[in-house]
């Protein structure tokens, strides 16, 4: 539309005269100009359809008793049996709760800790020191949980592990069995996950801080604001949109409590507090070859996540004016 109007404007015809054109004509005219762009996007479009939408047809096996050699067409239809089974297990309710508790803790600390860290780091005046701290703290992000799991078992060991040695010598209390008692296990999960990720997550906040107009600080200084006041009234409000966006988008992960991490750390003593949906699916469905059950749970998770993403997108739009398009 705007294109058409601009052309008219160039020819000197008053803008307010409506141009009577059918939608098809407009489309044709626009397409003539923009078709190379469409061609450019075509491969991506095809790939998305092929690898993101076509595979969704496979979701039918969530409603079947799928047997690989019978395929989609001959496997027996069982309706919602698998979904009913999911909630029939007394395990599964427990597992869903664990997932929610662990992931809510992870999301809330996973957002707030990097923000605080970014604020603190921003106040460091020595550029060299700032850079090296930043590099150091995001290194753990690149370690896999398979390796970290082994390290954590050693570091948190009650038989002379580093952490317990510090605790016993500092506070004179008995060693804490971090990985073997339920509530400590959850705490360990959350803390170790934050430790691993906070440096990496802080990058986006540091970028947001760097984008704040320096003249605001100058003006504040002229007005006599302290550093603390500057953080409170300039830095934080400047970061707020990105905090809200990251935080709300995290809600889509509400049912993901971290398979790799839990799988490498959980054990019989903490099944009750540490078993999450993904480890449950791994044991019950993938190891046993119950593809239908696995798909049913996957679908259940996706639907919830989809809802959360839509909801959080609304929130992000409302509070941070964030839009995808």
């Amino acid at each position, binding site marked *: 539309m705007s294109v058409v109007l601009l052309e008219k404007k160039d020819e000197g015809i008053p803008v307010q005269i409506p141009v009577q054109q059918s939608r098809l004509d407009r489309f044709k005219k626009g397409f003539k100009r923009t078709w190379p762009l469409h061609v450019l996007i075509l491969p991506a479009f095809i790939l998305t359809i092929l690898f993101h939408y076509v595979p969704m*047809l496979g979701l039918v096996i969530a409603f079947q008793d799928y047997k690989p*050699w019978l395929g989609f067409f001959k496997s027996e239809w069982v309706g919602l049996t698998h979904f009913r089974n999911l909630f029939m297990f007394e395990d599964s309710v427990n597992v869903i709760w664990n997932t929610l508790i662990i992931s809510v803790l992870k999301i809330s600390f996973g957002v707030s800790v990097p923000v605080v860290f970014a604020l603190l780091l921003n106040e460091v005046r020595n550029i060299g020191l700032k850079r090296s701290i930043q590099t150091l703290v995001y290194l753990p992000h690149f370690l896999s949980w398979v390796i970290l799991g082994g390290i954590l078992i050693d570091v948190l060991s009650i*038989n002379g592990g580093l952490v317990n040695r510090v605790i016993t010598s500092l506070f004179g209390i008995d060693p804490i069995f971090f990985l073997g008692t339920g509530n400590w296990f959850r705490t360990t999960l959350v803390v170790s996950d934050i430790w691993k990720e906070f440096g990496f997550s802080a990058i986006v906040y540091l970028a947001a801080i760097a984008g704040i107009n320096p003249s605001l600080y100058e003006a504040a200084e002229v007005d006599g604001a302290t550093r603390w006041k500057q953080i409170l009234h300039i830095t934080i409000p400047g970061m707020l949109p990105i905090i809200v966006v990251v935080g709300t988008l995290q809600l889509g992960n509400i049912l993901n409590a971290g*398979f790799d991490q839990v799988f490498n750390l959980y054990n*019989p003593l903490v099944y009750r507090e540490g078993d999450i949906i993904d480890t449950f699916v791994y*044991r019950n469905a993938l190891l046993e070859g119950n593809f239908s059950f696995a798909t049913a749970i996957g679908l259940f998770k996706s639907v919830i996540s989809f809802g959360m993403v839509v909801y959080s997108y609304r929130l992000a739009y409302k509070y941070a004016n964030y839009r995808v398009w």
Partner: protein
Amino acid sequence: MKYKKGIIRSSIIILILSLFVGCGNGSGNNNQATNGATGNPPVADKGGEKLPITLTTARPIGSDVIFINGEDITNNVHNKWAKDTLGIEIKDLWTTADNTAYHTKLRLALSTNEELPDVFVVQDRSLVADLIASGKVMDISEAYEQYASERLKGLYGEFSEALNQLKTENGLYGLPIFTSGDGTNPVLWIRQDWLDTLKLEAPKTIEDFEKVMDAFTNGDPDGNGKKDTIGFAFSARENFSNWMSDASFIFGAYSGKAIPGSWTEIDGKLKLGSVLPEMKPGLAKMKDWAAKGYLDAESPILDPIKATESFIQGRAGMIAAPSWSEGWPLNGLYSTNKDAKIDVYPLPVGSDGKSARFMNTLNENKVVVFNKNFKNIDRFFEYFDKIYDVVYETGDFKYGYFEGYDYVLVNGEPVYDSKKFPTPLEKGPTPSKYSLFWNTPEIPLKGSAIANRLYNGATPTTVGEKKAATQNEVTIKAGSINFDLKASNSPNQFLGAPTQTMRSKGESLDKMILETYARIVFTDKSIDDFDTLVKDWYDKGGQQIEDEVNTWYQSVK
């Protein structure tokens, strides 16, 4: 998380793609695959020269398969031998770089209706069950009767229970490929230097075992003046019966037969060991020991290999591990503690000599199955028997497979160490891995029987004995003890496919058992909760599982 999402997503993609492939060229594919085998008429072996046949297969070719002389899997000394001597041309339809990819590809072939290879090995119980259920693999019960050589029949007759893995009420759908059989059965490893310091004898009964643990825990066996040692290391993360860092024998000493995690025949019926009342005394004992500090409180978070670390670091005095463990991982102890001495003993027994211990299947779940359309099964059995020449030390393979490959004759004596060949090879080729079975099929328990003879002073004469005699003393002793303990082997007697209820509820029930065991032993959960566990297990699907297992058991009996 990404990992798991990836799995689901890629499996869905695979499923979708396989749908298209399945519809598209089902028949096209078939031709290519079956040409070889079915294209040739079956050969009647009546006196005349055998007609050459083509036999198709598929297998994983890992980096552990070593070739020389520019050979590869399609063109090598073994394939040449098979063609020249037996008239069998072996053709690989496809190969993969590792076992996981191999089984994925097989599963894919199954779901896309792709023609299966004529002869192929599978090491995955649920895939075997799917293959049999799909009706695409051959019932070989008649062929086995007709074509298997006498010594093969003798071998499978002696270990006939292993055939149950492939039996259904309709027939026999393949053969187990035996491994050494008792390679993961535990024996008791002890810090001999600690025993000597404290002037103790190795434990013979569970009571002795308890005394030794007490001394190891409280008697300061490492002489550093600190109470920093424990009696016994084991793993309780996946099970209480383990291939490494095992604790099954403690239960076996009270039950005499059943151990946790295995199905055992009791009065003609299979029962799951974990929920038998006979487990209670063993469990109570372990709870007592844990409270006294004899056991590592971290056992439930340590997997079987991680659990060996407390022994290796010189903190634990005893561990139950396979007979080869001194070579790895227990030898790690020597690097931190030069004066340490490890010795091996039989597992302690209960009153009246009761004992039982963990045992894997004789074939480590490895089986060979056949395409339903494979026409030359007689020729396969001929090949199979020839391959067994290596183990029986007969025929062409009296010294090994191929001279210049796995051995070289120097003055009429075979040399097996490739570094000592006339033209030394840094990495010797592995002709044993060129065969259809991925490795040399073995005679179960033969290795420990040889160790037993050698330990008792026999002079090595056969090839197998000479090879075994090169092991160190304590490993031979361990092998010998492993052999002596064979009466206490308690293998899982349920060898069928996971039953319906097992597939839907088995994991939850297993988790419940393991959780309760670990909590009873290591937390303040009462030992009487064991009775609740048994009741819960039966109520929540265990009864169904037990019935299904016994239906299977009746069908193969």
